[in-house]
């Protein structure tokens, strides 16, 4: 009898037992390598998108797999919450300020989830939140140099690391310009309630109020001119009176100097002057009252002139400010008129011409 037939039972038994043994060894090896019986430390993180991440994605640190992603779920804020675990052999790497970084191959060769340990002394407690590098919290940790990030060692990644911030800045600038233009358009359309809208509204109100203001300024100037003219007229009349008085005083003085003249006649005790003056100081008192009146008039004139001199710089300043305001208003109106962003511009005024003159000029040309 052939060997195989004679020992068929033993051969088949061995054939099956060896296969079962191999199967058991494979299962044990799988369990050992996949850490079925090892302690894992679980943490949570959040990604802006699940692209490039899936349950089972390895978490790498310096090329070593130190953990895996367990579960992903979309939360109410449209971010992706992720549960992941770190092997117990690498738990001491998970320190304060640690972050995760999802790097995507620039030429479409998949992605890697990298772990960067923090510089803190304390280990993170199980269940703690570990931010990602592209989150605000992660960026803050990187900016404060609280996390150890090794330099990227491939050229394309290095280039992209430099290009990405530029692109992000360009993108932010474009978005800002776009928002600004939108805001300007809305402001010019009168739909904005922001500062720019207020400014445009104020300019519009100011431009609308400018003719009234100009009329007010004209009124003020006219009023000032009329008051100054009245003051100048009063001052002129007073000066004329003073001139007459001065002339009279000069003639009197001349008459007093004449030895045969008026003084002698006045000093004659039997003369009419003496008689006239011997009136118990009545004339003297009269003269003194006249002098007092003249003194009052001179003081009043002096006060008017002093007040006028004090008001003149203010009047001059007011005129200068008015002139500057008119120039600024003219510049604003010209700028608003020349601004290409204004849609529609300032409505042109339609001047209504005299029908008679227009028809006549047209007919006789």
């Amino acid at each position, binding site marked *: 009898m052939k060997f195989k037939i004679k020992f068929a*039972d033993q051969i088949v038994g061995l054939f099956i037992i060896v*296969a079962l043994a*191999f199967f058991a060894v494979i299962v044990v090896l799988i369990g050992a390598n996949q850490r079925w019986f090892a302690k894992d430390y679980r943490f949570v993180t959040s990604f802006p998108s699940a692209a490039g991440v899936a349950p089972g994605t390895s978490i790498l640190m310096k090329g070593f797999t130190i953990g895996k992603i367990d579960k992903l779920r979309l939360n109410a804020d449209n971010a992706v919450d992720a549960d992941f675990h770190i092997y117990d052999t690498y738990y001491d790497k998970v320190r304060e300020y640690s972050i995760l970084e999802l790097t995507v191959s620039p030429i479409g060769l998949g992605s890697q989830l990298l772990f960067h340990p923090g510089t803190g002394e304390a280990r993170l407690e199980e269940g703690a939140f570990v931010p990602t590098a592209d989150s605000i919290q992660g960026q803050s940790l990187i900016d404060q140099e609280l996390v150890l990030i090794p330099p990227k060692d491939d050229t394309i990644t290095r280039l992209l690391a430099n290009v990405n911030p530029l692109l992000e800045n360009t993108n932010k600038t474009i978005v800002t310009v776009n928002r600004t233009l939108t805001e300007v358009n809305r402001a010019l359309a009168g739909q904005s309630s922001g500062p720019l809208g207020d400014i445009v509204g104020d300019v519009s109100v100011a431009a609308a109020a400018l003719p009234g203001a100009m009329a007010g300024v004209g009124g003020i100037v006219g009023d000032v001119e009329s008051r100054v003219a009245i003051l100048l007229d009063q001052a002129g009349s007073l000066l004329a009176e003073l001139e007459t008085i001065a002339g009279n005083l000069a003639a009197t003085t001349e008459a007093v100097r004449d030895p045969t003249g008026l003084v002698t006649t006045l000093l004659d005790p039997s003369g009419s002057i003496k008689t006239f003056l011997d009136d118990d100081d009545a004339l003297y008192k009269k003269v003194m009252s006249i002098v007092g009146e003249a003194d009052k008039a001179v003081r009043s004139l002096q006060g008017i002139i002093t007040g006028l001199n004090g008001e003149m710089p203010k009047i001059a300043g007011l005129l200068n400010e008015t002139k500057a305001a008119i120039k600024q208003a003219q510049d604003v109106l010209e700028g608003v008129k020349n601004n290409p962003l204004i849609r529609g511009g300032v409505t042109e005024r339609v001047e209504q011409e005299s029908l008679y003159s227009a028809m006549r000029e047209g007919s006789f040309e």
Partner: protein
Amino acid sequence: MAIISALGRAARTKASGLLYGLGFFYNVLKETGRFFRRAQVGYKVLIMQILFTGYEALAINAIMAIAIGAAINVIGSSLLPQFGQSQLMYSILIIVITRELGPLLTAFVITARSGTAIATQLGTMVVNHEIEAYMAVGLNPISYLVVPRFIGVVVSMLVLTVYFNIFGLLGSFIVVQVVNPTPIGEYLGALMSTLTVADVLSGLTKALVFGVIVSVVSTYQGFAVNRASTEIPVAGIKAVGSSFILIILADVIVTLVQYA
């Protein structure tokens, strides 16, 4: 009109054949349940079936597994690093060997070797009226002839799939050492980290389904022989053809179920 009649007749024949096949499969399952309570009936037949179907196919199975595993290793280790994806080699190896080609190629080998043998043997027994003799002495042909072959093929299929995985995943490592020397610890560590129980169970599930298909189709085609010896090779050919088609269909369905 004649064409319509012919189509109707063909459809009725196919439906009848399908119902007969389902009834045959049901009887096989029913008798399989009883087999282990009266194992003495076909125990020796079962052992011989596993010997011929499993043990004797081990050599060709191992050679195929090593060759395919080595080919995947060599191609992967030279191609994938160009894309910076060397670690994918283990995933590809596992998907190809454990999930797909392992059970599929093993089923093809068993169909080619044992399927034809079973159909031919049973067809010959029908032609020689041996089946009638079994029935005359009170032996149920399904219990005594089909069930041991059914169990033998299924067990052989499962065991050979395990061996295919072993040789495909580990045996290829020996060949790879010639081309690309790699430490065994690193290779095994990476391989076992990537391999999951789901991968292994997926391959074994396919092996179980394929084993059932090959054994049932082969025994059915063997019993389908009527009286002429010329029908015997036809039964063998039909057994192989039907088994291949059903195996591929089952492979697609099982894969869809697993990945759905």
